[in-house]
């Protein structure tokens, strides 16, 4: 399989292509909304509130007369930001802890992994809620909460993958060449587990988008005027008997973003792990 480039294998993988396109679309919409939206997403216009989808307002207007399409486009920024920042937090700390545990073995490894176990006793969203309860609601706290609670998962995964690398022959060779634990970790272990981590990043990214939406739906995530798909749904639910379609589009936006990232993760896993790919 050496002759095959990563990209060639990727383009043959349907999940990877579909997931990649959806994720690219999400990023493109977020970037585009920085420069242009069909209407000013925050402009309130009471006379035209609750307008159904039309040529001027493709997805209609909400209870303040804001253009739903523009608002969803700007909402992509929030989802992306929450996803990126929380994943970076979780990955940085989690991967570091996992690598340390794997390199140190013994008591250090045991301590790190037991601490991770304690955190696993709490469902992630519960922890986010708990943290928001103490620190107060808001987008930043939500991001931090979601990020912190993806640390144990990253740590566990990294340790598992790294332990499998540490027993390989080329590590022994590196040892024999006089390299220390830190150098071996950075030069040999990390590059070999990068694909596992990247797959996890896409999955956690998707979970972060879901968690942010849930927290905002509950009113303890990002606060107005920060646009958020989850809060759009909460507001739409109050008008469900009158303007049901308001609750449709933000949900589709969340689902498509999450679907794209999940597919991308599946595809990446297939591409980077030929052993798994053959099983399918």
């Amino acid at each position: 399989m050496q002759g095959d480039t990563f990209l060639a294998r990727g383009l043959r993988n349907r999940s990877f292509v579909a997931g990649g396109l959806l994720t690219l679309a999400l990023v493109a919409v977020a970037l585009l909304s920085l420069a242009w939206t069909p209407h000013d997403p925050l402009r309130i216009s009471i006379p035209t509130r609750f307008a159904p989808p039309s040529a001027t307002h493709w997805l209609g207007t909400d209870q303040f007369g804001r253009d739903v399409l523009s608002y969803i486009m700007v909402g992509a920024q929030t989802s992306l930001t929450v996803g990126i920042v929380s994943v970076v937090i979780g990955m940085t700390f989690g991967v570091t802890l996992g690598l340390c545990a794997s390199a140190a073995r013994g008591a250090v490894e045991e301590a790190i992994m037991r601490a991770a176990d304690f955190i696993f006793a709490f469902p992630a969203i519960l922890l986010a809620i708990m943290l928001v309860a103490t620190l107060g609601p808001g987008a930043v706290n939500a991001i931090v909460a979601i990020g912190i609670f993806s640390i144990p998962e990253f740590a566990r995964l990294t340790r598992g993958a790294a332990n499998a690398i540490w027993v390989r022959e080329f590590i022994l060779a590196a040892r024999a060449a006089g390299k220390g634990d830190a150098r071996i970790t950075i030069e040999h272990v990390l590059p070999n587990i990068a694909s596992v981590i990247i797959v996890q990043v896409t999955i956690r990214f998707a979970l972060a988008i879901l968690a942010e939406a849930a927290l905002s739906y509950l009113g303890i995530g990002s606060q107005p005027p920060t646009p958020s798909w989850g809060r759009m749904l909460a507001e739409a639910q109050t008008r469900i008997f009158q303007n049901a379609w308001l609750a449709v589009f933000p949900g589709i936006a969340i689902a498509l973003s999450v679907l794209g990232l999940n597919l991308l993760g599946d595809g990446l896993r297939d591409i980077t792990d030929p052993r798994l790919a053959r099983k399918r």
Partner: protein
Amino acid sequence: MSLFLAKRFATFIATLLGASVLTFLALEILPGDPALVILGIDAPESAIAVLRLELGLDRPALARYLGWVSNLMTGTSANSYTYKVPVAELIRERLEITLPLAVLAMALSILFALPLGIYAAQSHDKSGDVVIMSASQIGISVPNFWMAILLIMFFAVNLHWFAAGGFPGWSSGVGPALKALLLPAIALATVQGAILARFIRSAILDTMREDYVRTARAKGLTRRATMWRHVLRNAAIPVVTIVGLQFANLLAGTIVIENVFALPGIGRLLLQSITNRDLVVVRDLVVMIAAMVVTINFIVDLLYAAIDPRLKPHDV
């Protein structure tokens, strides 16, 4: 009891303790003065002093922690700051909704997932498999609260089959109560069921590649007999783990779903207590949910021991 179970039991106790410490630290030490948190920064000095005494904040943290834990174990809990009733009582009342909801959702999820997962594995890479896997991929991507809203739109707003939310109470009869829990349970089960179906499928496919499955076929067992006698029970081992984890996720999911359907369960209580800054309730709720998760993991371990003879003490 086998060594495996003894070890798991020790882990169970240790994790419970760890989770309680974590909760205590997060809610009592981190935010500074709980009395301030509860009353808000502009509260008069005197009121804060009274509350501090009431909460026992004058005592050292360790004493407060030990007092709290011993209260938890004897079931005599502090009074809720807002509801002025013992927290334990409050929680018990709310659990009557949350637990049945979670169990119902889990049952529905297994009911969806088991036949779909088995069917998909059996028709591996054929159209049935592809359809089920694509559908479950979409199911996984749908946020459960949006699913809940869609269900309300369809079954409550359009068809008028169900109420859009609320709970009549168990006193109004099991039928109406279950009816009120059905849509929320379906909303929870869709996502969990989709994940579970994928997992069951891949566990079965993995097991089907095992050498002993080939041995069974070499004995002359049909595909069907092999599936029932050799594959499913072995595939159950990883599936049981996931079901355990899912139950934890379901408990967390109820926090959100109860708020969609305005069900007075612990999820709603938690959110209200956060809004009211009723930290006494939040703390007990959080540790209780964690305890339930840990207990479920322990039950999963017991199930392992029941399924897998390798974990029983052997009589050699």
